[in-house]
């Protein structure tokens, strides 16, 4: 799926990590084509076994397939690598499950394109939206809001949003240095510590349309430990290569 970009406008690639999303991906792709035909789309098939890649190709979308599952962070790194090799200026992380509304794509891309920030985070909680997370997830979100505020002195209401636009400089770093499974609070802390500017943008989000949530019981128990430790380390760490 490729469209001509008006001269002077940054080239934007919508990166959709997908793992066994054959139920929800068709709706997501059709909606993107209808609402935002100007943006190129890349599906990163993260080791799916349900025909996700074939389905995306059948809809004319560029697909990169991993031979096995690398996690959402690993899939995004592949997307960044593809974006950089093909001359894109902005990479937009976009969920395959229908939670993200493509009508807000330009709202998320705009601040990065205008140079007002390096990472724009589409936030469910800056303004009220119809999205309601389960109680345990809301508690986790509050915890990591506090962690990010403590580490950076900056309030970010939605640290787990997967609807983000990354500028080219961020993708250059992110292709090598990016959390593999939970790219949330530790990622934001790491990017801010490297001097990248973060900005939250109000967006609306929806409940997951189809398919299974990424957050199983096991992941819900492991997530707080992993992210608290990773957040502390992101705050303490030297940048990779230094």
């Amino acid at each position, binding site marked *: 799926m490729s469209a001509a970009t008006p001269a002077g406008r940054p080239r934007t690639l919508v990166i959709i990590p997908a793992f066994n999303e054959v139920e929800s991906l068709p709706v997501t792709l059709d909606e993107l084509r209808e609402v935002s035909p100007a943006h190129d789309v890349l599906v990163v098939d993260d080791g799916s076994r349900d025909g996700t890649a074939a389905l995306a190709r059948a809809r004319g979308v560029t697909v990169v397939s991993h*031979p096995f599952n690398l996690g959402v962070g690993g899939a995004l790194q592949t997307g960044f690598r593809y974006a950089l090799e093909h001359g894109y200026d902005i990479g937009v992380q976009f969920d395959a499950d229908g939670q993200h509304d493509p009508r807000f794509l330009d709202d998320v891309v705009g601040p990065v394109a205008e140079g007002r920030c390096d990472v724009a985070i589409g936030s469910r909680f800056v303004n009220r939206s119809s999205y309601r997370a389960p109680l345990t997830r809301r508690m986790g979100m509050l915890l990591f809001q506090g962690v990010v505020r403590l580490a950076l002195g900056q309030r970010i209401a939605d640290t787990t949003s997967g609807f983000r636009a990354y500028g080219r400089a961020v993708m250059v770093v992110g292709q090598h240095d990016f959390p593999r499974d939970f790219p949330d609070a530790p990622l934001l802390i790491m990017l801010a510590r490297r001097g990248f500017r973060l900005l939250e943008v109000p967006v609306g989000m929806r409940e997951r349309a189809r398919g299974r949530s990424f957050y199983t019981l096991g992941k819900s128990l492991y997530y707080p430990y992993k992210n608290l*430790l990773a957040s502390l380390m992101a705050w303490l*760490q030297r940048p990779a290569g230094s």
Partner: protein
Amino acid sequence: MFLSTIQLVTALGATVLALYVLDLVRRRRLSEDFSLLWLVSSAVIAILGFSTGLLRGVTHVLGILYETSTVFAFGLGFTVIGLLYLSIRLSRLSQENVLLARELALLRQSCEASGVGVAAAGAPAGARGPEANRS
């Protein structure tokens, strides 16, 4: 609170190990996944070492004769769990390695069929033919 010499050595050793593991994670030498068991085991042993009452209580509950044997038992238990975890991860890495080898072979075949030359496996990086040595 009276701590015997061996308790102190055990507790301080476990504390130093925990701090070293944290530093390895900070320096990206160890991922958070692998750090969990190290941190839990060293924390448990440090707590047992610093708390004589707790150590005696656990020893009594488990029916162990000597308190030092309790610390060894926990250490051995964590070692077994760690080895099992490594075995599971190694098995997964081995399977993924096979998948990668297969993907590489298929990609090589696809390149050759398209007329794109691909260096043979085992050729040294940057190796040049005899023509390169002629001035």
